């Protein structure tokens, strides 16, 4: 079986779960004997494959960071242009005989649809997030929604990263539920380290990820547990506002904003963190929760995250319920047996979340359209 997979990012160039997913799924598929040509925009990193039947094909050039919401009108225009250009290039450059085309999110859906029409090969699209998620359900942009809807309608099969996302796909995009398969994400385990009194947020600093709720919970925790520190790791359009918020709440001395982190630095903060919080307003899956748990860090996830339906040994909160978030953080700091049990059982459960399993499920989906 030979698959043309259309992606946007791939380690070391990545901004979020999409890159992590593509890295895991392509290698997992390659290990199972599926030949994968992975297409992505050209970057300065010269991405390489470490598997024989996985070829990374960089296409053209693009400079725009994929995930920043294009609030800025001028930048937005450039960003859309870049995506269009990349999709046009894909349609020209994807050549050869493929059994199947597999694309990820709105960023490559136009090319996926065009290639299906051009080559007649079946199309599978994976939805890692929808415009509703990225906008935190506040002001979804119709432009994205239209691309997403067309891609899902024309696809032969849609993969959703959670039941939660499947529900959005069915209810908001009108796709028949029988056409949508749920395949949960996986993680390459990071391994534990020496813990410090540090509570971690890690993710893009956008409305979707709920960093302001993390800070509100931090304020409450600090009234009771004065010796701990909070790390806000990652970049995003909300950074200046979050710094102001920390200053206003008089907790700026207890909150560390890391700015952008390298892969090694990300692993390090996971390892030293005592608690990881993912307060996303809307989170189709949330691979970072699995990463934290694999680093031996008990994790509090928002009930509206896909991972919370798939993973048992974590704590759940409503993202807006910062009292309960603080209650759980303090409980984790105070009650060692709770902390230990979550670490121990979390590590055991995480062993079920392998890319090998994701590859198996994905091949099942492929077989269904071939």
């Amino acid at each position, binding site marked *: 079986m030979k698959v043309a997979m259309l992606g946007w990012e791939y380690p070391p160039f990545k901004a979020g779960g999409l890159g992590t997913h593509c890295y895991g799924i392509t290698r997992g598929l390659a290990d199972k004997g599926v030949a994968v040509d992975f297409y992505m925009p050209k970057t300065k990193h010269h991405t390489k494959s470490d598997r024989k039947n996985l070829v990374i094909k960089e296409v053209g050039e693009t400079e725009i960071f994929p995930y920043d919401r294009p609030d800025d009108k001028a930048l937005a225009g450039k960003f859309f242009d870049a995506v269009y250009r990349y999709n046009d290039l894909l349609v020209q450059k994807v050549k050869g005989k493929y059994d199947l085309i597999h694309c990820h999110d709105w960023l490559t859906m136009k090319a996926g649809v065009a290639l299906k029409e051009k080559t007649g090969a079946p199309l599978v699209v994976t939805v890692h997030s929808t415009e509703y998620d990225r906008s935190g359900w506040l002001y979804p942009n119709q432009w994205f929604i239209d691309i997403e809807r067309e891609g899902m309608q024309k696809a032969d099969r849609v993969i959703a990263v959670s039941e939660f996302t499947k529900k959005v796909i069915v209810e908001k995009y009108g796709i028949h539920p029988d056409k949508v398969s749920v395949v949960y994400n996986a993680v390459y385990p990071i391994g534990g380290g020496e813990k410090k009194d540090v509570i971690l947020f890690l993710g893009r600093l956008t409305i979707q990820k709920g960093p302001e709720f993390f800070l509100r919970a931090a304020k*409450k925790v600090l009234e*009771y547990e004065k010796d701990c520190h909070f790390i806000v790791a990652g970049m995003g359009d909300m950074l200046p506002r979050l710094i102001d918020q920390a200053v206003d709440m008089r907790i700026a001395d207890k909150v560390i904003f890391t700015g952008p982190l390298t892969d090694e630095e990300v692993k390090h903060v996971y390892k030293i963190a005592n608690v990881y919080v993912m307060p996303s307003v809307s989170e189709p899956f949330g691979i970072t929760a699995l990463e934290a748990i694999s680093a031996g860090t008990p994790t509090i996830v928002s009930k509206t995250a896909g991972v919370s339906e798939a993973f048992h040994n974590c704590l*759940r909160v409503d993202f807006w319920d910062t*009292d309960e978030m*603080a209650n759980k953080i303090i*409980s984790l700091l105070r009650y060692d047996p*709770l902390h230990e049990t979550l670490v121990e059982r979390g590590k055991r459960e995480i062993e079920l979340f392998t890319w090998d399993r994701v590859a198996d499920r994905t091949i099942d989906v492929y077989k269904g359209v071939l």
Partner: protein
Amino acid sequence: MPSVCLYFEVHQPVRLNRFSVFNIGKNNDSSSTYFNHELNHWIFEKVAKKCYIPTNNLLLNLINEFDGKFRISFSLTGTFVEYCERFMPPLIDSFKSLFATGAVDLIEETYFHSLSGLYDDLDEFEDQIKMHRQMIQRLFNYKPKVFRNTEAIYDNRIAKKIADMGYKGIITEGTEKILGWRSPNYLYKPVNADIKVLMRNYTLSDDIGFRFSARGWPGYPLTADKYARWMSSCEGNLINLFIDYETFGEHQWIETGIFDFLDHLPRETLKRENLDFVTVSEAVSRYEAVGEIDVPWAISWADEDRDVSTWLGNNMQIACFNELKDIGKKLKENGNKDLLHVWRLLQTSDHLYYISTKGAQDGDVHAYFSPYDAPYEGFINYMNILQDLKQKTNQ
């Protein structure tokens, strides 16, 4: 000729309020802040309508119909009786009517359905048994002869204590762990005490309690006729069927046909010439122990493990259990009566049951009964309350 000893455990725990770390040390009224009276009231009324009232009525009719040949036993926990007295006094009268038929026996247990039988000293255990004894005395003017510990938790030490307190019989699980090749359908005697032990026939008991409505089970659908046939072909003196009372109408809904099953059970059983019914007291006076059992480590009728791992299987449960014991020691030293009662309500084993992290089938059963989304939630809530009580105790 095996006698059928049908016994029901009737229990409702006093469920807890949501209690966060921010509530610790904030309010002096423990009862209203710890316990969710509204939820408890609601659940009690729901279960009473679905189970207690209709099942009591059915049993009373059956006893009258078979002229006392249909005989049963109950254990009513103290927390259950408190609910009745508070929210539904006629339900107590209904149990009194059942008892007045002479075909109903009552079983002793710890008032709070607690794990006090596992504490280092058995003084609290004894206190709670005496409280239960007083309650039964007050309501039924009766002194039970047979004891059943919380969820049939049993070991040599408990057996000795119960024998010393004058009981004639004690109930536990008929698990192979203890019996080996031997049948549960006989009475046994502990190696270290003079008392008869009734062993629960878990296969036949769970056929009703757990498997009754399981379509994948080869015995499905279970009819009274089929069940009586199974019992009739049993070897031994005694078939001990010990079942949660809530099986009728609550765990097994009315739609499953559970009430029809119960309705036909006496007739089908008494049709068989080799079967009759006995109460627990009659069982221990009619039959002799056929062998000894040695139980150094506690067993119970809970989960597949049949031990105490249901309540003390992980570090979170053990931490709460230890905290609870430590608070008790302090409370008994400084003798605050109100806090003592609150502490005892917190000893009800259900609070630890909700913190179990067991997987697979047992986990599903735990989740069914738990008011929490996850064991971790149960731990945080319960531990926060224990911390508050500890502060109050130390004041």
